[in-house]
């Protein structure tokens, strides 16, 4: 976040890729388009988590809860009320943000691990509700065949819609991270005590960040409904929350696009490996432990380092080279 820089090549590439993806429904088969949709939705969820973890330094252990709140809000409003489907889709992120602020306000009173433990506790309450309130949620079976607006019928339009929304969200998150709010958030990550000493209300800032991240998680939840037409209690389960941690770790904590890259790799691996073996979680566990030992900064973190070394080897001054990649 060097003051001079505006558009880095990485961001131009990402923008180009985003534009190119609009063509895939014309060129690729239904399954490919579906998998791309899964990657985008999961990646958005992981990036919203990374807003808090990589950039905010918060122990957001149960981020999946807000994903689930967004999805269930949309699903319930569409299936149980006579409101137009668009209202349900719009209400999802709002409900997720509200849940984020509510749960967040209980968590931020405490630091680090306690924060995480309390969040797992409260998020699990939502999971239990989704699982046990059978009359409302169909329990373990989830809600299926959620009717969506006409314009979203078919895999092509669905994908285009998801791609559009994810693009807008990424732009929004990027703006937020490059704003004073984002700089201050990273300062809190690095040193909350010092932040208080320069006049920042650390807790309020963190709470706002939780609300924002929960909002984007809620968007991802709504997009899941658009993609699958169903919701499941597992979306609120703690295992999913930790799985998206793996995506952030794999792609790189301290980068912007890292979690999206991580999500793409994990989703593709699951799709491919899952076709050969029923022991996918074993492989995921091994991948995770290898990452922790050998690649703690993730793929994009390492890519950044390599560029730095090459830069130095070429005799360029090292000034600013150690900066975490934006």
């Amino acid at each position, binding site marked *: *976040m*060097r*003051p*001079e*820089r*505006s558009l880095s090549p990485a961001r131009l590439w990402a923008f180009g890729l985003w534009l190119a993806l609009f063509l895939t429904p014309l060129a690729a088969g239904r399954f490919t388009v579906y998998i791309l949709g899964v990657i985008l939705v999961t990646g958005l969820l992981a990036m919203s988590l990374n807003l808090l973890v990589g950039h905010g330094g918060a122990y957001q252990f149960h981020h999946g809860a807000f994903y689930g709140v967004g999805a269930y809000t949309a699903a319930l409003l569409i299936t149980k009320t006579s409101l137009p489907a668009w209202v349900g889709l719009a209400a999802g992120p709002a409900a997720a943000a509200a849940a984020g602020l509510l749960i967040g306000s209980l968590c931020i009173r405490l630091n680090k691990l306690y924060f995480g433990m309390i969040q797992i506790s409260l998020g699990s309450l939502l999971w239990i509700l989704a699982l046990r309130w059978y009359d409302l949620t169909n329990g373990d079976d989830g809600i299926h065949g959620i009717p969506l607006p006409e314009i979203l019928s078919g895999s092509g339009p669905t994908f285009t819609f998801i791609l559009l929304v994810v693009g807008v969200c990424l732009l929004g998150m990027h*703006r*937020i991270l*490059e*704003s*004073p*709010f*984002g*700089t*201050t958030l*990273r*300062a809190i*990550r*690095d*040193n909350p*005590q*010092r*932040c*208080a*000493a*320069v*006049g*920042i*209300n*650390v807790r309020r*800032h963190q709470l*706002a960040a939780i609300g924002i991240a929960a909002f984007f998680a809620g968007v991802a939840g709504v997009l899941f409904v658009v993609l699958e037409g169903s919701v499941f209690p597992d979306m609120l389960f703690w295992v999913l929350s930790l799985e998206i941690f793996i995506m952030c770790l794999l792609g790189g904590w*301290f980068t912007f696009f890292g979690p999206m890259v991580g999500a793409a790799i994990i989703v593709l691996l699951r799709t491919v490996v899952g076709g050969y073996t029923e022991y996918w979680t074993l492989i995921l566990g091994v991948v995770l432990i290898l990452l922790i030992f050998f690649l703690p900064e993730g793929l994009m973190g390492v890519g950044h380092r390599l560029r730095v070394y090459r830069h130095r080897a070429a005799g360029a001054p090292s*000034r*600013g080279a*150690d*900066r*975490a990649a934006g």
Partner: protein
Amino acid sequence: MLQVDGLCKAFGDFRAVNGASLTVRPGDLVAVIGPNGAGKTTLFNLITGHLQADRGSIRFRGEEISRLPAHEICRRGIARSFQIANIFPRLSVFENVQVAVLSAKGLSRSLFRPTRRLVREETEGILDRVGLLNRRVDLAGSLSHGDKRILEIAIALGNEPRLLILDEPTAGMSPEETAATLALIRRLAREEGLTILFCEHDMEVVFNVATSIMVMQHGSTLIQGPPPQVRADPAVQEAYLGRD
């Protein structure tokens, strides 16, 4: 400007600060001295709201501030540096100071304006004043110890403080770094008219710089006055200087 009276703070049975008093007038360069464990850092933590006092009063510009949280005290114009290099290691040097400037200007919660165009002149001005302008794009964590301490002061300056509190600004520095830091402190006080309160355990450092000296012992105030008066005080000589 700052008036501390009868301040007490105990940790369990240990009375870290026990009836300390202190006066800082506008334009002063006040030094608090005393051996390690005399309660200097605790006193500063109480003033800046990082600790809550058990008893006593802290008045800043006529307002009682002893019950306010740290960030509120900062907003009233007291900025500080810490004894250990307390910076934002994964942010650039520029951003370290920018965070403080943004906070002082009430921009911390601004969401949709790009940071890189904001408060640039102010931030670079501060970096220039402390001599870190040429390191502005470096990661703060990669600076030398001495530069980190200077950066600390720069962060505090970013708050546009009325009162700047420095906790052992030269601790752990080489003799050259110490001299440079003291020169910086003197310049900030004399040329910019900044009111500064700092603490030191090295006596000689203090007598050359300060306009007023407060001597602390066992958590309480032994004396406060101009350097010659403090140097001549028999109690101080016995308790502190007499060792030489």
